[in-house]
């Protein structure tokens, strides 16, 4: 199966064109800016010729500098400005080229955006979208590679979404812009060139339901953002061994639907969660805990393994950077270990693994 088919699965739509993730994002923002004059885009370098890796291309020409503008280097104040504009009834989209830079916006996001609607007694709302891109590959290094979405999942009042493919990117972006709450929209650099079928007309993919992307009976693989793609590849490797993996994409991380995951693990009794960040107090920890709370109360035991960034700092040197990330081979191995604990240590055929890994930059998978 390929996320190209998601055009059918999810939106029940057989039309749509093959679109890249980055173009689907851009199209969603474009369509919403056309529909709603309150929507505007701000953020460092959103209006230069590179257009934030293409994700804001053409919007300046179409909507002018009042509705899409770059800012000074001032993440703290710019985040507060976006929040204030949202309180005043506008619908800002604040963009950051790397998620790491959000650490400068934490005070405004955690202490104001997340709390304003509540602490002001419901008098105002904060319909804000904060886009940020997780960097990966090729020397991004310690400060341009972090996936810190779990910090935002911790905070009531914020919503968090991390679409894994072009189809969802469009639907989630439209849902995020139309949401009356602050939404942390988590993107991944390596997903930008990946393709899927994307309906032309606007559609929303709101929180509520994780998606079973591929069926399977032996083990449940949950992948976040582009780790979902890695899980799809791992599934192919496992298939060679006669192991069938059910692949689940949470899509929205807060609010988080774990019923779909619990249902799957109730069947497979085996869970591998692959985070796109560090595992400690990560999304995988939350998912694992919810499954444990439900299945434990039902007296059902299960095996679980969390994967994610190695518990270290992301190095630039390729030989060790490669070891920092989960990849299809490692995911497949972890799943295999759960399914066949007594079997001799299995390693997928390196060529197959490499091939699967190479795919990443091509797509559609």
């Amino acid at each position, binding site marked *: 199966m390929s996320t190209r088919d998601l055009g059918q699965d999810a939106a029940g739509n057989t039309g749509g064109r093959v679109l890249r993730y980055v173009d689907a994002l851009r199209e969603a923002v474009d369509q919403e800016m056309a529909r709603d004059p309150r929507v505007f885009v701000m953020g460092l370098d959103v209006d230069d010729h590179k257009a934030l890796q293409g994700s804001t291309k053409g919007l300046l020409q179409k909507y002018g500098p009042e509705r899409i503008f770059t800012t*000074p280097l*001032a993440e703290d104040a710019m*985040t507060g400005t976006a929040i204030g504009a949202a*309180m005043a009834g506008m619908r800002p989209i604040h963009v950051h080229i790397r998620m790491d830079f959000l650490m400068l916006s934490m005070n405004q996001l955690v202490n104001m955006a997340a709390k304003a609607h509540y*602490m002001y007694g419901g*008098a105002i*709302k904060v319909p804000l979208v904060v886009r940020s891109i997780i960097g990966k590959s090729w020397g991004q290094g310690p400060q341009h590679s972090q996936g810190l979405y779990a910090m935002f999942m911790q905070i009531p*009042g914020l919503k968090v979404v991390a679409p894994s493919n072009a189809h969802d990117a469009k639907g989630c972006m439209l849902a995020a812009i139309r949401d*009356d709450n602050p939404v942390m929209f988590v993107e991944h650099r390596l997903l930008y060139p990946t393709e899927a079928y994307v309906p032309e007309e606007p559609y929303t993919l709101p929180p509520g339901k994780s998606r079973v992307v591929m069926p399977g009976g032996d083990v449940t693989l949950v992948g976040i953002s582009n780790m979902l793609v890695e899980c799809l590849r791992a599934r192919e490797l496992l298939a060679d061994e006669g192991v069938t993996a059910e692949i689940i994409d949470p899509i929205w991380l807060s609010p988080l639907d774990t019923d779909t995951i619990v249902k799957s693990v109730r069947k497979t009794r085996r869970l591998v969660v692959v985070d796109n960040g560090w595992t400690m107090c990560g999304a995988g920890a939350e998912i694992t805990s919810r499954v444990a709370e439900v299945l434990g109360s039902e007296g059902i035991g299960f095996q679980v393994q969390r994967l994610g960034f190695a518990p270290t700092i992301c190095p630039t040197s390729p030989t060790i950077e490669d070891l920092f990330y989960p990849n299809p081979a490692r995911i497949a191995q972890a799943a295999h270990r759960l399914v066949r604990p007594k079997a001799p240590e299995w390693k997928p055929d390196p060529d197959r693994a490499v091939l699967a890994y190479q795919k990443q930059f091509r797509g559609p998978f």
Partner: protein
Amino acid sequence: MPAIDPQTLRRVYRSLRLIRRFEEEVARIYPADKIKSPVHLSIGQESVAVGVCDVLAADDLAGGTYRGHAVYIAKGGDLNALMAELYGKDTGCTRGKGGSMHLMDIKHNVIGSSAVVGTTIPIALGYALALKREGKGRVVASFLGDGATEEGVFHESLNFAALKHLPVIFVCENNFYAIHTPIARRQAIPDAICERVKTYGIPAYRVTDADVFKIRDILADALPKMRSGEYGPIFLECHTYRWREHVGPANDYDAGYRSTDELQPWVDNDQIPRVAAMLEPDERRVIDADVEKVVAASIEFAEKSPFPPPSELMTHVYA
């Protein structure tokens, strides 16, 4: 000083008096533990909020800090809802959720205050961005303390406001202290705030004697230029003095970090008796009586109001 028209005189006096008496009552009630959140009183600092807000139109916006009762009242916020909020009641201006440090009254264009120093400064820019887009000439006044000018966000905000020519009035209530630390121990050049602000191309004014009419006149002069778009942001630094302790109802001149000698000139210069003396005794009596009435009413309202029901814990987490 040009003669002040009687209406303005009465309005300004009433506002000053109302804030003073309201907070004196808060201080009186406080030991009874009926008030359920920390209070940062503006007693002694009233003239800044009054001088600024008296010039603003009803549809202009204003937001204060956690020391925000004065701005809330001066801008015309609902007094009953304010006292009820301090009591943690369901009828409070934020339904008992925010307390004294998070006041808001959107109906009267009081935008929210915050307990984290400096956080509301860029929030005001966001409102100003919307007002500019609206194009009706409305402005937003953002109050901040001298300590807040040390936070990086203040400088980022000055630059952006000036760059985008936003209709923001930055009002610095310089009471020379951040909690117990005097400005000279926190700022390399303590009296350079206006000078620094000017380097962003922002007109900056300083009033050193808390004269409510001077503050009023500066803004009355600048406001039309802001509405017409000739001016972008402006900055107003007002020297003033906090009479009570940083947080809570009491005095703290025995604590050792400041002396009553430092306080005295500010008491001598108290704007309330000064403006009172400009009124006819009868006018004054009428206003004083009315102030007592509304303050007493707000207390009764708060006392009689119910606490939020348990269901409120989980309402308004998400819109």
